[in-house]
């Protein structure tokens, strides 16, 4: 997922430069100065404008005199990071020792030999601190390759002022959402009813996977042997998405929308509903960037009428991987054990304003600190993308390119789905 690409790029870039320079400056001094102390290099992506990574490193270094963690904050674009890390790790570099990766990476990185099998490195009880779903997503062939660190998911944002004025409850089905949108659009209070991500990129795979799950289907079969897109569920999901554009509920330019475009539409006060990730909350409440401060509510995404509520939400968030060539695996493990324990995890909520992955740290207090995201997150029905195959990047491209073709009217729905289906099948078959 391109979650990382959504975060505040300028601040992040500044932080990356500052921290990167700092890391270069100190690494040489420390390795030689004391025989006892071990330096491990930690590579993360910018999370948001908070100082969460720096604060975590300071806290760890203070409490662990024998291990020094050097932080490097990489670029915001998750695909750039994948390119950088795969080149570096693939050529056998011992650093970074620990790196943050996307939730879609474990299978691919495991198969490519870029991530250490963590199953034997941590005691079996270690994994109990996370939700079983999060642990499973970080596995490939039953072995764990990533330690969940913080949690992110897709939400429905809505204009609570407009719904209240119209006397409408928060919609729980897609049919209700469309009807509400049309009603309020007709009054002229908003131009657009529902804004979402329809551009040809990973975000569209997330959007589409959610709707296919709502319709009772999936992208691939559970055992990753067959593509299951060209089905009634796949068609229903695509019908719905196309329908929102055709009926004027969603803007014409939706097939070019990524998160920032939909967010701009929403914060400008032009849209009634928006699908977006939790990072967007803070921006909708920032008076310098938003015209809808105090008018926004968050809820789980709707589902299709007749299906159990709520609708599916794609999960995101970050996991930590260990470099298979790291010289200090013992220290890496110690660091990650600390990072996912309740103290450090509470910092993710209090400092980083994101929900921790450790379930014991997902306290009411933490939920309070994170804002409405924290309260709604527990109600979500998290549905993962088919990331259990090392060919996930190809599967996802087959989905988003063909769905985008259909959305922009360059292919019929049936052409798009049959093309996607055969491309997914060939990606699965190539592994």
């Amino acid at each position, binding site marked *: 997922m391109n979650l990382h690409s959504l975060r505040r790029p300028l601040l992040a870039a500044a932080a990356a430069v500052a921290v990167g320079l700092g890391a270069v400056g100190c690494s040489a001094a420390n390795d030689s100065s004391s025989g006892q102390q071990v330096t491990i290099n930690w590579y993360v992506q910018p999370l948001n404008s908070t100082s969460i990574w720096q604060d975590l490193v300071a806290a760890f270094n203070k409490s662990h005199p024998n291990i020094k963690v050097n932080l490097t904050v990489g670029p915001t674009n998750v695909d750039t990071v994948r390119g950088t890390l795969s080149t570096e790790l693939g050529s056998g570099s011992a650093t970074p020792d620990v790196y943050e990766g996307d939730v879609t990476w474990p299978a691919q990185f495991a198969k490519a*030999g870029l991530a250490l099998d963590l199953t034997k490195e941590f005691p079996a009880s270690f994994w109990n601190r996370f939700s079983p779903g999060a642990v499973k997503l970080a596995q490939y062939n039953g072995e764990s390759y990533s330690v969940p660190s913080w949690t992110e998911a897709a939400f429905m944002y809505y204009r609570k002022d407009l719904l209240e004025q119209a006397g409408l409850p928060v919609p729980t089905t897609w049919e209700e959402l469309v009807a509400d949108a049309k009603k309020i659009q007709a009054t002229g209070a908003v131009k657009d009813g529902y804004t979402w991500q329809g551009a040809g990129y990973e975000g569209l795979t997330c959007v589409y996977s959610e709707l296919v799950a709502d319709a009772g289907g999936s992208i691939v079969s559970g055992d990753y042997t067959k593509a299951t897109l060209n089905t009634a569920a796949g068609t229903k999901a695509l019908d719905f998405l196309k329908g929102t554009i055709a009926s004027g509920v969603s803007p014409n*330019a939706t097939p070019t929308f990524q998160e920032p475009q939909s967010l701009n539409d929403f914060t400008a006060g032009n849209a009634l509903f928006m699908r977006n990730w939790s990072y967007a909350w803070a921006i909708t409440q920032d008076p310098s960037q938003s015209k809808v401060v105090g008018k926004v509510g968050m809820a789980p995404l709707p589902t299709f009428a007749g299906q159990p509520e709520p609708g599916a939400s794609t999960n995101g968030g970050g996991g930590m991987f260990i470099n298979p060539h790291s010289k200090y695996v013992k220290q890496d493990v110690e660091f990650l054990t600390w990072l996912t324990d309740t103290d450090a995890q509470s910092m993710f909520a209090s400092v980083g304003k994101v929900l921790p992955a450790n379930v014991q740290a997902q306290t009411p207090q933490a939920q309070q600190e994170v804002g409405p995201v924290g309260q709604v997150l527990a109600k979500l029905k998290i549905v993962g993308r088919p990331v259990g195959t090392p060919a996930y990047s190809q599967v996802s491209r087959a989905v988003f390119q063909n769905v985008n073709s259909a959305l922009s009217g360059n292919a019929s729905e049936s052409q798009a789905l049959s093309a996607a289906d055969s491309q997914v099948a060939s990606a699965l078959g190539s592994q």
Partner: protein
Amino acid sequence: MSRHANGASLLVDDGNQASTNSNGASLIGSGSGSAPRSGTLRRTARSRRRGVLLSSPALAVVALITVVPIAFSIYLSLCRVDAGADGFDYTFIGVGNYATALRSPTVWAALGFTALYTVISVSVEMLLGLGVALVIDRMTKGTGIVLGLLLVPWAMITVVSGQLWSYIFNGVYGLANYLLVVTHIVSAPVSFLSNPAGAFVALLVADSWKTVPFVALILFGGLRTIDRELYAAARLDGAGSGRILTHITIPLIRQSIITAVVFRVLQAFGIFDLPFVLTNGGPGHATQSIAMLTYNALFQDLNIGYGAAISCITTLVVIIFAVLFLRAFRVEDSVD
């Protein structure tokens, strides 16, 4: 240079012949005629050896940074590459990656798009570039300022200008839409980038904005070498502007045109950054260039062998084009 040297030695030979008449014929035939020439040859061979010796460090660097990586990527394209415990493992699999690539409809679609894009964008940019160059060539004042300004789009990093163009072509609040709406050309914003033709034109406009100045500068350099008296003479002979352009200007700047076309084709065929930023290959995969496929294979799918194969195919296509083009325009002849 060598012609002058031979000429000089022949003159000396004549002198020799006059003074030593007895074996003159043999002198002319072989002796004095060939002696200095073979000396020249010896000197040439020696200086050539020294030249090779002196330039060999530079040649080695060039080999290291061009030939070695090229050879290595050809090798990669014939391998399956896996990362192992001690770095990459290479398993030789022959032409498997090429077979996969050539069977893939995605690769053919990308090749088709890239070829079409190259032909259209280079043609448009050459025409516009020639127009701009002719205008600057006629300017009597401010040429320096205009040349400097022309460099601005060319010097701007494509990722940055691509981002600017994506704001301009934005389907909701873009500048292009704003202008179209306030001038009542359209009633509602147009989503340029969500149909293939619109996306293609957007790419073409953004690319031309950047590269027309490049073409113009090269052609302007050629125009400056033309002797103005030729124009005056042609006018006296009654040639109109059109005839002057087709019969004097264009033939005389042929070298510049060839240079610009070759450069532009190489760049256009390898286009990556602009569609990456502006359209991300979309809508669907309508504007996915062959270089983007290479990027996807290498850095998203971590499929190094396959990515290298696509990249070798691209290079081969470009080399074939360059050779055919240079041959068609007889570049060797026109050097003389």
